[in-house]
């Protein structure tokens, strides 16, 4: 299922923020699921700086976290997901 690569096999999806972040990108931001990959930059997915700021806001709401401005320096989707996962781990600890 290349159209939705990150969710191709639910058993392989790591526990964490990835499925929900991808869902937000596809559902709210209208990102083509076929273009979603961990290596894609958010610009590749069609998000400009304002959209990225809005995405961070949505992610914070979704996971109940608050991303520090200094941390919001990710370029790729993979980096964004890793960042959120670190916050979630810290929150759970």
């Amino acid at each position, binding site marked *: 299922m290349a159209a939705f690569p990150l969710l191709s096999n639910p058993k392989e999806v790591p526990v964490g923020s990835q499925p929900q972040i991808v869902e937000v990108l596809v559902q*709210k*931001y*209208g*990102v083509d699921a076929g273009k979603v990959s961990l290596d894609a930059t958010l610009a590749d997915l*069609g*998000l*400009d700086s*304002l*959209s990225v*700021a*809005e995405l961070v*806001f949505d992610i*914070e709401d979704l996971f109940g976290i*608050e991303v520090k401005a200094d941390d919001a320096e990710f370029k790729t989707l993979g980096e964004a997901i890793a960042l959120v996962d670190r916050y979630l781990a810290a929150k759970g600890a």
Partner: protein
Amino acid sequence: MGRRRVLVTGMGFVTPHGDQADRIFERVYAGESAVGLYRSGRGAAEADVVLGKADWNPDTYVTPIQKLAMDPVAQMAYAAARHALAQAGLTGRADLLSSAGVYMGCGLGGAATYEQGYESYFTKNSRRQKPTIVPRVMPNAPAAHISMAFGIRGPSLTYSVACTSSAAALGEAYRAIRDGYLECVVAGGAEAMLAEAVVIAWESMGVIAKLHPDGPAASVRPFDAARTGFALAEGAAVLILESEERARERGAVPLGEIVGYGSSSDAHNLTQPSREGQAHAMRAALADAGVPPEAVGYINAHATATKVGDVVEVQAVKDTFGAQASRLAVSSTKSMHGHLVGAAGALELGLTLMAVARGRIPPTANLTQPDAECDLDFVPGRGREAPELEYALSNSFGFGGSNASLVVRRIVD
């Protein structure tokens, strides 16, 4: 450089009558109202209100990501501009558009975004709010999005003078081309203020039409003895203005000509209109056009169906046109599309241009029992054939006492 002629080569609309220019005119000409009864507010404040909601599908114009940074007011402006540029044959013409200007009118900016932002702040009591609020709210966002979308690099200006906003934008754009500053301007207005608290604010002024026993379509009754006000409406209207030289050089088909613009201030009262101020604007527009009152065959009136406003405008028309006033056709198309506030002047100028081009005068809907003080020829009910119609005038009068009148002419040579 002397005065240059200013032609209109494209028009685009998003209105309660839809987003197709020809269809909008046909429906208005037939006397068909597009306002409806909508539930507004919530809880104890919930009520049915006569409003003019834009009949369009934003998803056919903008993507979800674009919407993040665009309040509906900017989405409508962009859609109207796209239609207008397409009709003008300017789609994809970056070579011509890079030197053009964008002159837009907007009364309130991103009203829905304002409201959502305030609600979020006051209910969450948090300093953490969406980063897109400011760029969505700013009243110049419609102009900015048009500039960005079509690569327009000349002046991008926004006129915010209440109900006169887009008439002022069009008038100033006309002057910029007439006087040689620009060859082409994308000009018009946009307004989207049907947010619930905004509607209530308008209601509290006593200017919103009450539901008529015959239904919402019968509720807006300009010049009628039983008038109660207007239907607050949303939408956008954009016209492409070009110098005659530029339009002819590229073989554009002119739809009409703007020949005069008059602008005045009442210096009188924030909300009460002034007969003198309105007549001043109309006289200035006629003088600018260099035509006598008897040349004008039709006035698209500002006429918002308020008790005071309609009578004052009738008096001002009489002051301006003298004996000619009784021979003029005067109609209020707001009776059908509602009051688009910052987009009203541009929509009504567009309808006026279509009226002279087609020789068909749009009517005033719902005028069955004229007010004794409103005694002009208001073209009640249905439109009227007027093949000889050459010049027409469109009025816009705003809170704050800002008035604008524009004179248009059918293409005759």
